[in-house]
């Protein structure tokens, strides 16, 4: 080869570098280029760091235990006394949670101490309720009641209107959230004839001022208040329902199970009511939150829901 510089095996620029002495296929050599100095020293520093880390934090396993490290975390135990344990993520979390609780304590103390109606009148506290309540509501309630609390026909009630299935007072809302609810209406599809259900649906429609067949509604009225239908038993004689069992108010324009607002015409509205009467209602399950949320959080949510609109 004429040009020596192209061949690394004979190029003086490369042959001056140390090699490991291995040569394959005549001219394939392994060079030994030392690492840059800065790199080497950084590497030594990481080693020293590791040694310090082993001393401070939990590290090496030994036998049935491990080196716990000299670093500790101090938190309050269930009896309220200070207690220390070697650094670990659980201890750190416990401490962080306790610090955060402490920071929110003035608000929560006030929240617990004040009666509901006073909370709304305290501007600082009510803005705390709105911001903390919004987070709690989004994490826990929005998948059902939707993000603004507007609900979903056929599934979950609207919490922003002034129509309450179980009552819109603070205490009732609190009871609903703590213990959960499960409204139940038996299916009448088998117990009653199809035309009886049709009569009832027409009557129920008239209760809230919808247009319906007057003759059928008259027959439906008898069924509703008589022993055959016995609707009055749960919905009361005035059709306004009973808050203790959550039987719907049939005289207002708010519907949850019968998709009346979604129906195109009067016949469709009656059909929607007919369907609900014959299938009954059993899927209205509001989970209980005591246990999952603390009493304070439930009080906060009660206030939040009450202020969403229409609380009584």
């Amino acid at each position: 080869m004429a040009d020596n510089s192209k061949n690394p095996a004979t190029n003086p620029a490369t042959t001056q570098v140390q090699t490991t002495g291995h040569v394959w296929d005549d001219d394939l050599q392994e060079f030994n280029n030392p690492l840059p100095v800065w790199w080497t020293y950084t590497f030594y520093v990481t080693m020293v760091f590791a040694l310090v880390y082993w001393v401070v934090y939990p590290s090496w396993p030994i036998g049935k235990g491990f080196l716990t490290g000299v670093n500790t975390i101090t938190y309050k135990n269930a009896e309220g006394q200070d207690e220390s344990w070697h650094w670990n993520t659980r201890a750190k979390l416990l401490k962080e949670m306790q610090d955060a609780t402490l920071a929110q304590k003035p608000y929560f103390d006030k929240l617990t101490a004040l009666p509901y109606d006073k909370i709304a009148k305290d501007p600082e506290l009510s803005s705390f309720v709105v911001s903390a309540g919004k987070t709690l509501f989004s994490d826990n309630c929005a998948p059902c009641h939707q993000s603004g609390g507007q609900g979903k026909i056929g599934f979950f009630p609207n919490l922003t209107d002034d129509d309450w299935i179980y009552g819109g007072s603070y205490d009732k809302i609190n009871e609903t959230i703590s213990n959960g609810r499960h409204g139940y209406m038996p299916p009448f599809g088998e117990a009653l004839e199809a035309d009886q259900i049709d009569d009832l649906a027409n009557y129920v429609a008239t209760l809230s001022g919808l247009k319906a067949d007057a003759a059928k509604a008259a027959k439906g009225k008898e069924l509703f208040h008589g022993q055959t239908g016995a609707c009055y038993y749960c919905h009361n004689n005035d059709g306004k329902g009973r808050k203790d069992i959550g039987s719907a108010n049939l005289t207002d324009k708010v519907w949850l199970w019968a998709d009346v607002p979604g129906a195109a015409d009067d016949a469709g509205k009656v059909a929607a009511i007919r369907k609900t009467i014959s299938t009954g209602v059993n899927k209205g399950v509001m989970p209980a939150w005591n246990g999952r949320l603390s009493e304070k959080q439930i009080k906060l949510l009660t206030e939040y829901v009450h202020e969403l609109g229409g609380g009584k």
Partner: protein
Amino acid sequence: MSFKHEIVETNAGVLLVLTMMAISVGGLVEIAPLFFIKDTTEKVDGVRPYTPLESRGRDLYVREGCYLCHSQMIRPFRDEQLRYGHYSLAAESKYDHPFQWGSKRTGPDLARVGGKYSNEWHVQHLLSPRSVVPESVMPNYPWLLETKLDISDVGDRMRALRVVGVPYSANQEEYDRNVKQFGEKVAKTLVIADAQKNLVAQAQEGNYDGDRSSVSEMDALVAYLQVLGTMVDFSKIKPEELVKFR
């Protein structure tokens, strides 16, 4: 020098074995001690193996690849505790084979989703997530409700889990041991011979999919979701006790 680098470099087999030995050191140092350190698995009450129905639901969870978007591992961080509930304990997945901790959260963590929603919500959400959470990117799973659950091999599945250490009972002695450990009510659900009977009974009683006439895949999956994270009663445990397991 008797040892020559060249020997390793020119023998692929030797190179492979030595490389494997070198990289397994990290794994051994991190994993092996956990089998010996006595505080790895917390001593808490309530954790029991899944019932046959829940266990089949878990199989469906794996089949549908829910773990690709959902983790089941609440880490001990403040934001996670506030969002999802108490951090997960090792003890809570001691009967999970394989565990479903996961590593990807496109959706929320599910370790404590049990009891958070109603069965009706789960059914509707699995059929069509966007009908209840408009901004959701979770796929629809409409076939779960239409497909009857295959329960023919549930006993075999429990036998397989028994081999890897889940205390499903195959004989009287094991049953008696379960009665002692979990109480009679739970022990009865762990009897392999009664698996099909127990499965159907739980589906009937729980009515998870709102239709008692048959056991659908939806029944099993919802039963599984509803038990997640509900076995340990944290109100009975002082937080500092769990700290001391680490």
